[in-house]
């Protein structure tokens, strides 16, 4: 019994840490977790407008996009100083070993979010806009079989010409591309 206690205690600490990962963090780790949560909430707010499940409102879309743009780019990367690997963090070591790629994706998020803010007034095209996907011809420099991501070659003004749902998906796929490589998922 006595010998088991420390282990049980540790297990409890572990469970508590897992359950309160976001609220238990401190300092820069907490700040960046809060920023991610703010971006998640912004996406959640406008997602039903993108799917047609809620009435489209351009100013709501624009303000959500601006919120995300403000938290991306340099503002995002400055929250990842070397060594900020508090055990509650979900950031993988690749953030620091592959910093250039991380920085590129953070900048791409800013570009696509600013693009969405411009595109907000364009309204929806409906799923499957040809410019954004489906046609297969926008894949990059090597024709129909190109592997490059269109967002890497586009400015916010270019993206601003797209329907809002296309710009939105371009932005959220950038979120995913970064999570793929740099976020530890459960």
């Amino acid at each position, binding site marked *: 019994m006595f010998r088991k206690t420390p282990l049980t205690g540790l297990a409890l600490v572990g469970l508590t840490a897992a359950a309160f990962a976001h609220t238990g963090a401190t300092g820069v780790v907490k700040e960046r977790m809060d920023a991610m949560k703010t971006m998640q909430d912004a996406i959640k707010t406008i997602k039903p407008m993108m799917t047609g499940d809620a009435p489209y409102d351009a100013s709501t879309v624009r303000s959500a996009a601006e919120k995300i743009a403000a938290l991306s780019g340099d503002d995002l990367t400055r929250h990842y100083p070397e060594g900020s690997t508090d055990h509650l963090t979900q950031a993988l070591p690749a953030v620091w070993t592959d910093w250039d*790629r991380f920085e590129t994706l953070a900048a791409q998020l800013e570009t696509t979010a600013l693009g969405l803010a411009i595109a907000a007034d364009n309204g929806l095209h409906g*799923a499957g806009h040809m410019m954004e996907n489906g046609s*297969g011809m926008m894949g990059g420099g090597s024709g129909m079989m190109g592997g490059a991501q269109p967002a890497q070659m586009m400015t916010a003004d270019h993206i601003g010409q797209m329907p809002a749902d296309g710009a939105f998906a371009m932005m959220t796929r950038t*979120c*995913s591309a970064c*999570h793929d490589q740099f976020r530890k*998922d459960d």
Partner: protein
Amino acid sequence: MLRAGMGLLGLLTAIAACAALLALWPIGTPVALGALQPDPQRGAYLARAGGCIGCHSDPGSDRPALTGGGPIKTSFGSFVAPNITPDPDHGIGGWTLEDFARAVRQGIAPDGRPYYPAFPYAFYGALSDQDIVDMWAAFQTVPASPETAGAHDIAFPFDLRFGLKLWRAAYLHAPPTAPDPARPEAWNRGQWLVNGLAHCGACHTDRNLAGGRIAARHLKGSDDLPGGGTAPDITATALARTGWTAGDLAFALQSGVMPGGDTFGGGMGKVVQHSTAWLTPEDRTAIAQYLTTEN
């Protein structure tokens, strides 16, 4: 002592004999594709849906598309999806259409060697001759490049490829793709995509110690993906339990956004970016309909 030595020698001879027989064991069947009319545009669509471009490219590197992917780290070693541009020396420029068909649908290289199952050819077995002809035509439009992503780094004894013939005999099975006339067309299309070309089960199914997919665990998730990742249970029961509707799923496959506003990670972002975002809305809906329908 001598007897033990003789015994060991005998055992080694027997192993060598088995290995020699295994190395000579012919696998696969010949293919004849006739004179089908190629549609490279359709082939490019299939190549995206099948993940060819995603896995054989590494957008973060400076190399052109299809010159090889990033390393896939498994417990057997590190696999690298090779250059599949039409370069004659470093890509598939020296291949015939029949070589391509056998490689994709049967997992056998032009020189007769079996591919490692990191290449999900088992799922591609459901591709029709027309699909193959179209994909081959699409690959001909890619600029040839001699750049490569490096070689596999496989631990002994898994580096002995003839051992894969045993693996094929034991584990080369694929989930069903044949249409069920009693089901709606979209469900059948979804089944063909999920269980065939899009090979969802390659990640979303647990594997045994030999790396073979456990058929009874089909689409029930895996916590042992290359690189230590996990893939969730995507059976209809699990999706219903976690609050996913068919509409949520179709939208997530386009945008990466999950019902709560969070976005995919763990490798699924790449799948969306390189494959499912390129699909028609009808195909994404078909996938969603198939996955959310209780069997």
